[in-house]
Structure formats: structure tokens, C-alpha cells
């Protein structure tokens, strides 16, 4: 409370006010301005690549290869894609009009929502901030980006560089912890995108409800990977490469689309485990090729997952935790109990439980009993199984015979369903996420249908029935007949 007893306006009020003013001035509507912002983003990513790698290494121990593949590389391509397609996306789209409205023309016109807020997450701190940012700018909005304080070097990098490469009056970076996020949510936004946990997602949506602010939530989940019998040795090796790539080579498993656990037939499990062990040795022979665990707290959390003795005894590979370097060996478990924390909570770390089933088809029933994940993966050549997975399970996305790569494909939407969230982006969906598609109908003054107007009578009602049946012939005849 202020000294004069008046309620203090929430902090950031002047920043939000400024952004609204700039937005109202129309600056962000201009297509050239939007393109200049996107080009600015590309330059930022290309010129500051080394700084980005450094920040990611500091925050997460992320190897350069990963950092390029998952954050910088995919982003540059995506922003260039937006530059190319922006004109098409922003153009009004003509749609059909029923003949009875003749003469009329109908369009859908995309317009920016206004001033939007993007919460990024700590595990892909560049990508999860800049991909939506590029969509919001392409769509003509003013933007506030709130990076996660848990990746402080990246947050500082963004705070220092975004004003240099983008229009600093229109794009703001707000550093800070959960209090900053909560205070930001006291304000009204035209859209909020939140990437993070379901717990915080609920808080964000509840606060947004006060202002009728639409939200998109990209939340976590346990992404399962079904591994079917693979006949050829080569296919099995490829599958294992990709599984390892999607678990330990993606921020040490700390990714919303990382493989959380595997489902495999009992008889195939030993083969799979052996192959995993030998390939892990090759990939991670030298240290420094796997990201580290974010911080002390996450490290403790992951360690606690093995506290349960039933879980600890199910470890078949790895299990070594080094508190000094916050690194955890790639760890594989075989059939930990289904009611243990490691099988009920999102792991978000380098521990991989393998759950066996009698027949691979049983995995479908298993999945249906769980909350809908962000991604379902399946390695199989069985077309029937593929079809059943698509039709009988629900998830943000499904990828067959690979994992994570769906993230970089701009032609498909990226987002969750059920507990894994709602709202989709990437590619043109990023543009649409921050747009309103306004319906526009234009008519002329020619051709008036008298039966539209009161006073009503049965004759008029009759004509209208023809209209609604699109029965133009009878309508025409009726018009002739009833013309006074």
C-alpha cells in the first residue's frame, strides 16, 4: 500500500501503457516493419551465434551440436520461412458467399491481437522465446518476452541483444522470477503464451480469466515411445540412435518432447537394452556431449525418483549421480512399479524407464489410461499398429520411427491437448496464434429483398423458405409472382 493509502498500480504499468500506445500508433501493422523485425531476428541469431552457444553452455551445459540443432539452426530456418510467407499469411482470404446474399463478397482478414506476452521456459530458452516472438511480430503485434530466470545467462543475453536487433519500443524483455511473471499477469494482454508446467499453467489461465485474455499453454507430459519388434539389425540400430538422440541428446532429457519412457514387448526388451547400452557408450564416450541437469533443485528431484527401493532395484544401466557437476549418467530402468513417482510424474531428466508388455498392441491400452501427452513416438513397420495408434490414442502429435524431429517441421502444428496444453504454433501457426481472423462481408445497395423486412406475413415467410433451401428457381418465380 502506498503512503497515502491508495492501492499501487501493478508494476510494469508504464511499460504496458507505452506498448499499447506504440501499437495504437499503427507502427506494427506495416508489412515492411514486420519484415525488418524478422530480418533483425535472423541477424541476431547469425551474428551472435557464439554468444548464444556460450549462454546455453553456461545455463545448461548444452553442447554446441545440440544448441545449433535445437535452438539456433531450426530457428533461423523458421524465421526465414516466415519472411518468405508473410505476404501470403497476412493477405485477406476470399471465401464463398451463398448466392442469396448476391451481390456480396466475403473475406477473412487476419489482424494482430495487439500487445502480447510470451513466457519462455528454461530448457530451450532461446527457441521457446524467439519462435513465438517471430510469430507475434510477423502477425503485427507488440510483444513482451519473459525468459525464465532459471536460465539466467540466456535471459541476460536476450535482455541485452533484443533491443539492439529489434525495435526496442515494440519488443521488450522482462527479466525476473515468478513474482515478475505474476505481476505481469495482473495486466490485460491480448494474448499470453505460456510454456512450462501444468501447475503454473493453471495460475496463468486463472489470472488471464480476470481480463478475458486468451491464452495458449504449452505444458509438460510423459511422452511415451513404443518400440515394436524390429527385424533388421540395421533398423534396430537406427531406432536406438534416434531414441538416444531424443532422450539424452536433447538437453539430457529435459525437454517437453523428449522420450519419457519406453513401451516394448517383454521378449524384445533385453535386445533393446543391450543395443542402448552399447550405443550410449559410443555417443557419450567423452564427457561434454550431454547437457547437464539444470540446477541443484532439479538434481535433487531426479535423485528422489530413485529413493523408492523398488525403483532403485529396477536400474539396469547407469544410475551414477555426480552432485559436484550436477551430471547424471544416462540411466535405464526396467519395469519400475507403475505407481512410483518415476512412472506418474514427468521425468524431465536422463532417466529412461522401460515398461514391458506381453503384446505390443497392449501398449495402446496402456496409453489410453494416461493423460494425453505432447508427443507419442512409435518405432514400428507394422502399418496396422501405426493406424491404431493414430486412431485410438490422443496426443499433441504422433511421430513414427523417429523423435523430436517433428519440432523442426514448419508445416505441422506444434502443441498439446488435454493436460499437455492447448494452442498450437510453429510455421504459419505461430502467425495465427497471435492473430484474429476477422470475418468481413461487403454488400452493395443494389437488389433488395422485400421479404427481409416486417411487417411479416405468410407470403414473406414462404419466400424465405425458398431462400433457405437455396431454391433459387422457386424464389425467382415467387419474386415475379408476388411483385406488386
Amino acid at each position, binding site marked *: 500500500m502506498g503512503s497515502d493509502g491508495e492501492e499501487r498500480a501493478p508494476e510494469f504499468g508504464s511499460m504496458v501503457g507505452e506498448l499499447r500506445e506504440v501499437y495504437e500508433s*499503427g507502427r506494427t501493422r506495416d508489412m515492411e516493419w514486420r519484415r525488418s523485425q524478422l530480418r533483425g531476428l535472423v541477424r541476431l541469431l547469425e551474428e551472435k551465434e557464439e554468444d548464444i552457444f556460450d549462454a546455453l553452455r553456461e545455463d545448461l551445459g548444452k*553442447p554446441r*551440436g545440440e544448441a*545449433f*540443432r535445437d535452438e539456433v539452426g*531450426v530457428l533461423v*530456418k523458421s524465421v526465414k520461412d516466415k519472411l518468405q510467407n508473410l505476404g501470403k499469411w497476412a493477405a485477406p482470404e476470399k*471465401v*464463398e*458467399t*451463398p448466392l442469396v446474399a448476391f451481390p456480396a463478397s466475403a473475406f*477473412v482478414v487476419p489482424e494482430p491481437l*495487439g500487445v502480447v506476452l510470451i513466457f519462455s521456459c528454461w530448457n530451450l530458452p532461446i527457441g521457446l522465446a524467439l519462435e513465438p516472438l517471430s510469430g507475434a511480430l510477423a502477425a503485427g503485434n507488440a510483444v513482451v518476452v519473459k525468459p525464465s530466470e532459471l536460465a539466467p545467462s540466456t535471459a541476460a543475453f536476450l535482455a541485452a541483444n533484443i533491443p539492439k536487433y529489434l525495435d526496442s519500443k515494440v519488443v521488450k524483455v522482462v527479466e525476473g522470477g515468478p513474482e515478475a511473471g505474476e505481476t505481469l499477469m495482473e495486466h490485460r494482454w491480448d494474448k499470453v503464451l505460456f510454456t512450462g508446467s501444468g501447475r503454473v499453467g*493453471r495460475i496463468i489461465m486463472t489470472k*488471464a*480469466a480476470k481480463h*478475458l485474455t486468451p491464452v495458449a499453454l504449452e505444458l509438460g507430459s510423459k511422452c511415451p515411445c513404443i518400440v515394436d519388434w524390429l527385424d533388421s539389425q540395421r533398423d534396430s540400430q*537406427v*531406432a536406438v*540412435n534416434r531414441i*538416444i*538422440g531424443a532422450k539424452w*541428446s536433447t538437453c539430457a532429457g529435459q525437454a517437453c518432447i523428449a522420450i519419457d519412457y519406453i513401451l516394448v514387448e517383454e521378449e524384445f526388451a533385453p535386445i533393446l537394452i543391450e543395443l542402448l547400452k552399447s550405443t550410449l557408450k559410443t555417443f*557419450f564416450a*567423452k564427457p561434454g556431449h550431454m547437457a547437464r541437469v539444470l540446477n541443484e533443485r532439479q538434481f535433487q528431484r531426479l535423485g528422489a525418483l530413485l529413493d523408492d527401493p523398488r525403483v532403485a532395484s529396477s536400474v539396469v544401466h547407469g544410475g551414477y549421480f555426480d552432485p559436484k557437476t550436477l551430471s547424471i549418467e544416462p540411466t535405464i530402468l526396467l519395469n519400475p512399479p507403475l505407481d512410483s513417482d518415476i512412472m506418474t510424474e514427468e521425468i524431465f531428466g536422463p532417466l529412461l524407464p522401460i515398461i514391458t508388455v506381453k503384446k505390443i498392441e497392449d501398449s495402446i491400452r496402456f496409453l489410453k489410461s494416461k493423460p494425453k501427452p505432447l508427443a507419442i513416438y512409435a518405432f514400428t*513397420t507394422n502399418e496396422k499398429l501405426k493406424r491404431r495408434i*493414430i486412431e485410438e490414442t*490422443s*496426443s499433441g*502429435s*504422433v*511421430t*513414427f*520411427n*523417429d523423435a523430436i*524431429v*517433428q519440432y523442426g*517441421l514448419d*508445416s*505441422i502444428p506444434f502443441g498439446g*491437448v*488435454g493436460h499437455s496444453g492447448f*494452442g498450437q504454433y510453429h510455421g504459419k501457426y505461430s502467425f495465427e496464434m497471435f492473430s*484474429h481472423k*476477422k*470475418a*468481413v*462481408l*461487403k*454488400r452493395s*445497395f443494389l437488389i433488395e429483398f422485400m421479404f*427481409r*423486412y*416486417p*411487417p*411479416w406475413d405468410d407470403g414473406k*415467410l414462404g419466400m*424465405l*423458405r425458398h431462400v*433457405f433451401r437455396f431454391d433459387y428457381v422457386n424464389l425467382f418465380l415467387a419474386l415475379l409472382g408476388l411483385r406488386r
Partner: protein
Amino acid sequence: MAEEVARELRASFKAGRTRPAEWRAAQLRALVRMIEEKEADISAALHADLAKPTMESYLHEISLAKAACKFALKGMNSWVKPEKVPAAITTFPSSAQIVSEPLGVVLIISAWNYPFLLSIDPVIGAIAAGNAVVLKPSEIAPATSSLFAKLLPEYVDNSCIKVVEGGVPETTDLLEQKWDKIFYTGNGTVGRIVMAAAAKHLTPVALELGGKCPVIVDSDVDLHVAVKRIAVGKWGCNNGQACIAPDYIITTKSFAPQLVDSLKRVLERFYGQDPLQSEDLSRIVNSKHFQRLTNLIEDKKVADKIVYGGQADEKQLKIAPTVLLDVPLDSELMTEEIFGPILPILTVEKIEESIDFVNSKTKPLAAYLFTKNKKLQDNFVSNVPAGGMLVNDVALHLANPHLPFGGVGDSGMGSYHGKFSFDCFSHKKAVLIRGFGGEATARYPPYTQEKQKILRGLINGSFIALILALLGFPREKR
């Protein structure tokens, strides 16, 4: 009670009853039959609830509901088909598609002013998309609510489509359950409550809310036609109690007298000398709203600005079309959504000023402009944010199933009608299918300079990089 309903519907959905195309089509055909066979009952219920003229019941509710059903029946087969999309060089070889799947069990809360249409319309989308549905009709339109409760079980699959009647306690009970989507039509106050309740379960929502729909009238118009369209869009839509009815008019000071004159003439032609006696005007839904509306015109600030109408009959709950000129901007009439037969006209010096005025208010569900001036039309379309807009007519856009219908900002979020209804209740699942070929070792650790170069190329869609990667470059040192 709500818990039981939710549980039963979830079981039905899980059992897969709502997925087959034949089931969905059968439900929609049953709805068409219901509308055709029970047209008289529906009209009677709408008359009981709102004194809605039969013509309006037919025009705005019955025929639109039937058209929506038929449109969904026709389009459904193509809507449910997966959409093939291009895959990238980065994932070569691969194929990608987008598959529409139902969200699951959805809750639809309807409104009182178009109680039949606003219930059926979203239900059609939910069914077409393969969901199980609970419909909660508005208790403020009790005859239509009980009609649904009686009729729907006679026509559709009651294990998957249910009606729950009731007021605030029943709605609150429903809102505490977990749904896969909630679709709400009504006002912003309850909209906030719905969204906050949904937040607890991370349930996505669509909110169709209201706002003050402005009508800008330029002097460069076919005045008689324009005024007829405005009048029928206002008083011919449930006597102004419609979310897309014109709320207020803006015109130039010099044109206002002609506009008012024309309005008076048209109103008299439509509703006669004694509008309270006209059968062609809906009544006000209940005494609470009647009081609210009469207070608006009795407000001292505006009472002397009435240029036409003002009559009210409390017994019949009828208020005559009432037009006011130049009311003060801080009067309640100009700050609250009117939702009734009262039409204030504001004046400006130059017509372009009206655009700034409209933009100074919250984004409306619909905005209207009457003019032949192309430049003004373009300015309007480009610079006025709104759910939807019409040039030279009113309200019609909601009848075009190819246009998305929904609000923005305070007027709501999400859209429906036509295929948009189907999309509203669907999840668009991305499916990427790869084979085991096209293995690029460049993806995996240990990361080297050579790998990075190839990866760079691959990600940028370089064909050469793809070839190199496919050929197994870089070769691992043994």
C-alpha cells in the same frame, strides 16, 4: 448430478461410440428431423420465452439451425479426412499429415436470446467432430430449455448427448467437472467465471460474448435501404437483444437529421403507429432486463435526447423502438452494452472521426459501416478490430457458413459456424511418418565440426547437405 453426467459421457466417449462417421451423421440427421417435425413447438417455446415473432423464429433460429446441420452433414466427410502437408528435406524421407480428432467430452452453455440456435449450433459442431456433449440451455428462456430436455432424448443418442437444465447452482456444479472443452455464449462477467473454472482443469474454452456493436453511417449511401437494413438488424433481431445487433450509430452532424427522419419513417412502416401493439416485435425477456432498459432511457442525462419512441408497457414487458440523438458519452447508455430496443445516435464533424471513436471502446463482436466510399471502407476494414464486420448491411455475416463467427478482446475468444464449428471441437494432431532410411549420423554425438557443417546444411534445407548426410558423411573415424 453433474458428476454422474460427466462420468457417463466419459464412459460413452471412451467406448468409442461418438467416433464412427455413421453415428455422427445419424445424430445430425436426427436433429434435422427434430427441427422439421417440431417446428411449431419450437416456435411456440420461443414465443413463450420472448414473444418472438414466428417470422423471426423461422428466419433467425429454425432455418439457420437446420442449414447448419445440413452444412455439417455435407462437409463432414471431407472435414474428418487427414490433411496431407509437405514434409521437409530435413526429415527426408518422410510424410506428414494433420489428423482431426475429437477433444472428448464437451460442455456447451447456451444463452437466452437465441435459445434454440445458440444451443443447436455449437452442439452440431461438437457432434460432427465426434465428441460427447452436455448442453446447458439458459434458464432465463425456460420454455426452450424444457423443450430441449424433452425433445433431444427423443431424437438423439442419449448416452452421448445430454441436456442439463438449471440455474446458477447447476451451472456451478457443471463447471466444477473436468471437460475437454467448454463453449460459453453470454456476457463477460460469467465468461470470466467460466474461464477461471476451466483453468482448474486446464480446459480450453470458447467464449462468445457481447459488446457495443457500432454502426457508422456515411452520407454517401442509399439512405432508405441503409436504414431498413439497420432497423431490421436492430429491432428485427429479438428487439435489439442480440449480441450482433447495432448498439449505437455514429454519423456526421450534417447528415443526422436526414438519418433520424428516415429511421422514423421506416420504423412506422415496420411497426405501425403504436409499436407496443405490433406482433412483429419481441418482448423484453424478463422484468430485470425491462427495469434495466427503462432506467437507461429515464436517466436524466438522456431523457431529453429521445427523438422517437420511449413507450414502455411493464405488464407486457414491451419497450417500443427508441431512438436518441447526441447522448452524453459518459451516460450509461454509452458505456454499457444496451441489448435492447434503444438506439443512440452520436454525431461527429467528419465521418473519419467515427473510426477513432469506435477504436476508443473495447473490441466489439461486430462492426458495421454504411458507405459507398471505397477509401472509407478500406480504412474501416484495416483499422477497426472487431469479431466480424459488414459493409452496407447488418448481421448477415453470421449466416455465411464460410465465415468464422466469434469475438476478439472483450467480445470473446474462439470462433465457430460451418467448418469452424467442427474445428472448434477438434484437436488437430500432427502426424509425422518416417522410415528407417535417411539416417544422418550428423545428428548424434560425439559432435564434431564436420557434423555441424552438414547439420547446418540439412536444417537449412540444402539438397547437397542431404545427399552428404544420406551418404553417411561425415565418416566416423574408427
